[in-house]
């Protein structure tokens, strides 16, 4: 029997690979910009010792609150420490908090959202009521309460933020799952013998995770701000570990004398938040089936 539909041949010559990749990246410049900035921050954080001659705690008493100069490109703070060095070491904390808290939150929130959306009925109702309880607490207050109970430190902050985020991610995923689980292809897989586990993990989850990933990226931006806020209040990581929020706390009294010691930490926070926001926006455009992916 003659085969009706043979594969079409590729008759047009395609442009060279690097050019196509370049064009693809340019069309998605928001995403590219976000990824580039995050890569930059990660390099700064990971390679911090190699990127600065100073250590973050050495005090130079002859250069207190100095402005930017060739020796200290971001100037020094109230205790004579090099601001640039402290900023890039602080990124270690910021990025760990962002990735750790959101990662942990996904670990807890995705199964919740998936099960609630897939099973519906009383399972959904029960899980969502539990999640709603958490949602009722303002993020910062919940974080502060947990820190009060569990003590300070990076780990506690990560857990506190993660707990606050679980309801958000769970709800977003649940919404997508509700839309996807009634799709014809899920029904088809079921008709062909797939059990619940396979349906959930191989068909429903991959097709519904998109908006949750976007939300996670945006939550990372917010996590950076929460961490900065908590550190500013003195509830974050303890000195001598530098953190951006704590730097603001230490130096905010010196603003009129030397704005640099607060300006650069601020810009650093802003840059990090911007990077994750761009990532989130770029991902949203990428995953939108109707968009042009810009």
């Amino acid at each position, binding site marked *: *029997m003659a*085969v*009706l*539909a*043979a*594969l079409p041949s590729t008759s047009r010559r395609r442009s060279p690979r690097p050019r196509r990749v370049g064009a693809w990246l340019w069309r998605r410049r928001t995403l590219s910009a976000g990824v580039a900035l995050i890569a930059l921050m990660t390099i700064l954080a990971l390679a911090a010792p190699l990127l600065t001659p100073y250590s973050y705690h050495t005090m130079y008493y002859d250069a207190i609150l100095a402005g930017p100069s060739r020796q200290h490109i971001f100037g020094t703070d109230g205790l004579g420490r090099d601001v640039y060095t402290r900023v890039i070491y602080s990124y270690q904390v910021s990025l760990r908090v962002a990735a750790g808290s959101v990662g942990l939150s996904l670990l807890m929130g995705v199964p919740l959202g998936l099960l609630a959306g897939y099973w519906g009925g009383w399972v959904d109702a029960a899980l969502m009521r539990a999640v709603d309880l958490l949602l009722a607490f303002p993020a910062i207050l919940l974080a502060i309460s947990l820190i009060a109970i569990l003590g300070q430190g990076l780990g506690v902050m990560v857990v506190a933020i993660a707990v606050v985020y679980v309801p958000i991610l769970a709800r977003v995923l649940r919404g997508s799952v509700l839309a996807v689980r009634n*799709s*014809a*292809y*899920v*029904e*088809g*897989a*079921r*008709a*062909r*013998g*797939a*059990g619940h586990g*396979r349906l959930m993990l191989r*068909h429903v989850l*991959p*097709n519904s995770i998109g908006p949750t990933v976007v939300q996670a990226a945006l939550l990372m931006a917010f996590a950076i701000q929460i961490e900065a806020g908590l550190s500013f209040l003195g509830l974050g990581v303890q000195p001598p570990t530098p953190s951006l929020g704590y730097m603001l706390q230490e130096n905010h009294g010196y603003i009129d004398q030397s704005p640099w010691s607060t300006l650069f930490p601020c810009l650093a926070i802003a840059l990090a938040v911007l990077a994750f926001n761009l990532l989130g926006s770029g991902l949203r455009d990428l995953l939108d089936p109707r968009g042009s992916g810009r």
Partner: protein
Amino acid sequence: MSEPPLLEVRDLSRHFNAGGSLLPGHRPRRIQAVDGVSFDLAEGETLGLVGESGCGKSTLGRLILRLIEPTAGAVLFEGRDVTQLSGQALRETRRRIQMVFQDPYSSLDPRMRIGTVIREPLDIFRVGTGPERRRRVGELLERVGLDAGYAARFPHELSGGQRQRVGIAAALALEPRLIVADEPVSALDVSVQAQILNLLHRLQQELRLAVIFIAHNLDVVEHISDRVAVMYLGKLVEIAPTERLFSAPEHPYTRALLSAIPIPDPTRSFHPQPLPGELPSPLDPPTGCRFHPRCADALPICAEARPALLSYAPGCAVACHVAAHRLGLVAVREEGGAP
């Protein structure tokens, strides 16, 4: 024919709860999506199932596959009641009744390659070895008229007609004996529709497949079916061999339905039988015969008693008081069986 039919549907029903109060004095509201449907299907036979929105034909298709659980009745497949099976026995039966879905644009997982989609049932039921499964995927693709190389592609790279072929290939993977096709060509262009209809016919001949063809397009149903069953508001109102149904329909609804089809022949005049009113709400179906408020021939009894599905010739049955009266039927047996 003395062979038992491949499929026997007996009094199959499915209702849905539609809210309503639990307070005393209020009845919980129900939708009878499918209400007491019975018919038989022989091996290799094609039954067309037609009706308009809300008639329950899609629900009936899913009940037969047990994708939805029935609330009453039985589905006997190869002699065993599918509604009572569980575990391994149910899984084995599942293999032999498959479904082809309506919308080719949403019936394939957009993130899975075609080959993976077709292969999945083989993996689930552990049919053969890895290389054997791969080969079978290629065979199935060619059987439905696609190059085996399509296995590496994603659904969005294929046209609607090609995607529907993939859906058929996936349904054939487990070598079923019965396929329920839920509006398989409704979303396709006319010229592509012809390709798929020809394909289905050829596959039926080659594989001795029985098909329940659910559709709203009566021209297509007339072309492809051996027998046709008409549904209205959850009930089976008439069933007969194709030629008989289309030339001499007995049920008033069937007559109205057939007269409403625009025929592609400008020389014939178009006078659809007026069907007053709208489709009643399934929450509040009329008493007695569900069609009586819109029926020009209604008798007083039609508002009081539900007409039983009565056989008037081999393979022919109708559920209508007026028709029963006209045909001189006595309520001895209820049948919708294969001749």
